């Protein structure tokens, strides 16, 4: 996307892109100083910094960096408004909500399933198969994860069962999309309904009204010895679920896989231009099968995290749209694992805020839950620079 935008820029004084970045940072700073621990109680400094951010953004736009400039102006406005609101509210409330360590811990908790789902979505879509069935694949992982953990009395085996279940559902998607050349969106939606029915059916048939038992083996948290007792870091990342770390590691691994290995290069070429890939001898169906199945396995890990990592029980339809937020994270992160991680953290943060904000306004807090969707809607509208999906995504491929 970094085409020659900076050419017509007034490059003499400041690089407009740097100005944009500075504006974004300043926007955050404006709000940050009004929050604990700094807690400046007058809005004046924040507003001045916010104005500076907006100016920087305007400069960046003038210099041709529309995207960064737009973000900077948005950051300035949001930061200034947020800071003003913060200075107007009581410090007690403020400290209830903004306990950074707890917010970070909660953000990681909420982001973890989204990261898994988004990585799954990236695998599938990078190979050219749309996957709107992520929600269903997560749900399979959530139920069969806990079901397996209960029956086999091991969270690890449960996780494997959940991953296999997600992979199986993804296999159905692959078969319909690749062999039967089904409409990938319709097929994905069908799998969401199917997963909802299948998991709900077996759940009720097996557990009845009591729900899953309390003593199921759960994925352990990892306590980091050195950090655990430090006050801030200890609260933030001292006790974090194993799968959270796995998710972060997978982001790195998947980035390396996609962009640094021959197999990743081939997978991307299949998603961009399958005919070109075929003419150099890459099997399009085989590549897509592997990508779609691993997509289901990854999404199912996110689901299993929900049931046997985070919550410790299962209830019907418990993914509650997280598969769709993961899909949003894929788009918002522009089909890059790192970008999706950023989006997942942002979305996780907005959920974490929504959980804590009721101290201020019980009703308004819930609107933060909608933030991921609003941001993604803005992203697909192309307001902040068009995100471009893999070129061949959604098109069934037929050999010549």
């Amino acid at each position, binding site marked *: 996307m970094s085409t020659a935008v900076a050419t017509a820029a007034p490059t003499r004084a400041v690089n407009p892109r740097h100005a944009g970045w500075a504006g974004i940072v300043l926007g955050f700073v404006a709000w940050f100083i009004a929050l604990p621990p700094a807690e400046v109680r007058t809005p004046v400094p924040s507003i001045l910094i916010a104005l500076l951010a907006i100016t920087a953004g305007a400069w960046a736009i003038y210099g041709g960096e529309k995207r960064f400039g737009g973000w900077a102006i948005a950051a300035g406005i949001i930061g200034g408004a947020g800071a003003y609101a913060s200075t107007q509210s009581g410090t007690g409330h403020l400290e209830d909500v903004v306990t950074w360590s707890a917010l970070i811990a909660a953000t990681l908790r909420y982001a973890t399933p989204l990261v898994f789902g988004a990585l799954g979505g990236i695998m599938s879509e990078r190979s050219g198969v749309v996957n*709107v069935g992520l*929600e269903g694949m997560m749900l399979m992982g959530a139920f069969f994860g806990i079901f397996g953990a209960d029956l086999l009395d091991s969270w690890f085996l449960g996780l494997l069962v959940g991953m296999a279940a997600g992979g199986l559902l993804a296999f*159905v998607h692959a078969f*319909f999309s690749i062999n*039967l*050349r*089904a*409409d*990938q*969106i*319709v*097929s994905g*939606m*069908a*799998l*969401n*309904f*199917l*997963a*909802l*029915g*299948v998991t*709900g*059916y077996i759940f*009720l*048939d097996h557990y009845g009204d009591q729900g899953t038992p309390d003593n199921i083996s759960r994925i352990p948290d990892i306590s980091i010895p050195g950090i655990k007792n430090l006050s801030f870091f200890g609260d933030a990342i001292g006790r974090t679920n194993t799968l959270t770390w796995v998710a972060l590691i997978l982001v790195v691994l998947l980035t390396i896989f996609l962009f640094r290995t021959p197999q990743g290069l081939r997978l991307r070429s299949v998603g961009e231009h399958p005919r070109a890939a075929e003419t150099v001898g890459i099997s399009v169906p085989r590549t897509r099968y592997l990508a779609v199945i691993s997509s289901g396995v990854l999404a199912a890990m996110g689901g299993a995290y929900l049931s046997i990592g985070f919550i410790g029980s299962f209830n*019907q*339809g418990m*993914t*509650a*749209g997280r598969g*769709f*937020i993961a*899909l*949003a994270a894929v*788009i918002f992160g522009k089909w890059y694992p790192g970008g999706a991680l950023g989006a997942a953290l942002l979305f996780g943060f907005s959920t974490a805020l929504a959980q804590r904000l009721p101290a201020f*306004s*019980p*009703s*308004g807090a*819930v*609107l933060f*839950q*909608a933030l*991921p*969707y*609003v941001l*993604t*809607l803005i992203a*697909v*509208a*192309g307001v902040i620079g*068009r995100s471009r999906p893999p070129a061949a995504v*959604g*098109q*069934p*491929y*037929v050999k010549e």
Partner: protein
Amino acid sequence: MSTELEPQPGEVEGEEIAEGYAQTPAARLAAYFDGGGVLVPVLTAVLAFFVGGLVILITGHNPLSTYKAIFNGSGLNWIFPWVSGSERTTAALNLQQTLIITVPLILTGLAVAFAFRCGLFNIGGLGQYLVGGYIAVWVGSSFAGMPSVLHIIFAIVAGTLGGAAWAGIAGLLKATVGAHEVISTIMLNWIAVWLGAYLFALNGPLQNTDPSQQSVPISNDIVAGAKLPVFWGDPELQGLHIGIFIALAAVVVFWLVLNRSTTGYEVRAVGFNPEAARYGGINVSWNYFLVMAVCGAFAGLAGTLDLLGWQFHIATNDVLNSASGGLAFFGIAVALLGRNTASGTVIAALLFGALLSGTSQRNLDPNIFEPELAGNLTFIIQGLVVLIVSADVIVLTMLRRGRSMFKRRSATAPAAKAEAS
């Protein structure tokens, strides 16, 4: 690129047709639906119910008695003249339930079907349904002094327009910047869900004003004058309201617009082949916007009628529960099974309406099959129906390929060029 149509006898042009023809997957589906006849949807439903029966069997129940219980629970046995006495009374009550649910299913089905006919896939029925309901509940619970008929009309118009506006956002994005309607309607669904969770939450702007209910996150009730009249059954026991006539009228409008109007001609042309539509002088972008708005109007009307007809209020829990597997999502299965036609949508809506009410806690005999399990059976059948429809493109392709090969053999030898690129 080539679930496209077979080249016709007399030419060898593999690739040209593929380029640009029926680009949207939805257009491709729509293109195939015309050729299927009534056999394919019937087989689809039979297959889905058969697999559902296997699930029942595997989990140790009797599929036949289960399906019979669901059938009776739907009240469809009311049509048999030999059902009498108290059994008939129960059947009537059940059938009223079925038809009440059929109303929103018809309308959300139309919301999906109309989009499909223009080559668009509207997954946003849920959001449009919800927004229509929010506006209906606000209008219906305010303006208490209005004359009843006016109040009802006002609420219906407002709710319908609300749904249209909500879907119009997706249509506008599609028409102006080409944003994929599937993504934007999914996002709009969830925005609508959380919007509802906000509106009716404790201290939310539309939370009820009843002093005794201040701890309940629920809206005000629709005032008596804005409730839709019940014409069959007891209004106190959710009798059948006149919304069904409005829904059927919408079906007629759908059919009339699509098949008899110049607008419908444009919509279908865009749906089958946007490039040919452009060649014919049709404004393709405008059609995308218009169609999404009309779809939203159908779904918004569904939400409105549900509120004014039998729900009368919205609780945040209802909104959040509707997000996964809510009634509005069944519109997709209804439209696909109904082949995106007017009559097909009505029949498919009745089928799913019967399935939903027949498996409900209230109607299904728990001694034969647990209603909760049956509810999930409904989701399984819904998923299977959609899955089979997604792939019956291939069934029809094979059918057509077989047919055209037969034709080619009997065609006179055409002297055409054979430069396949």
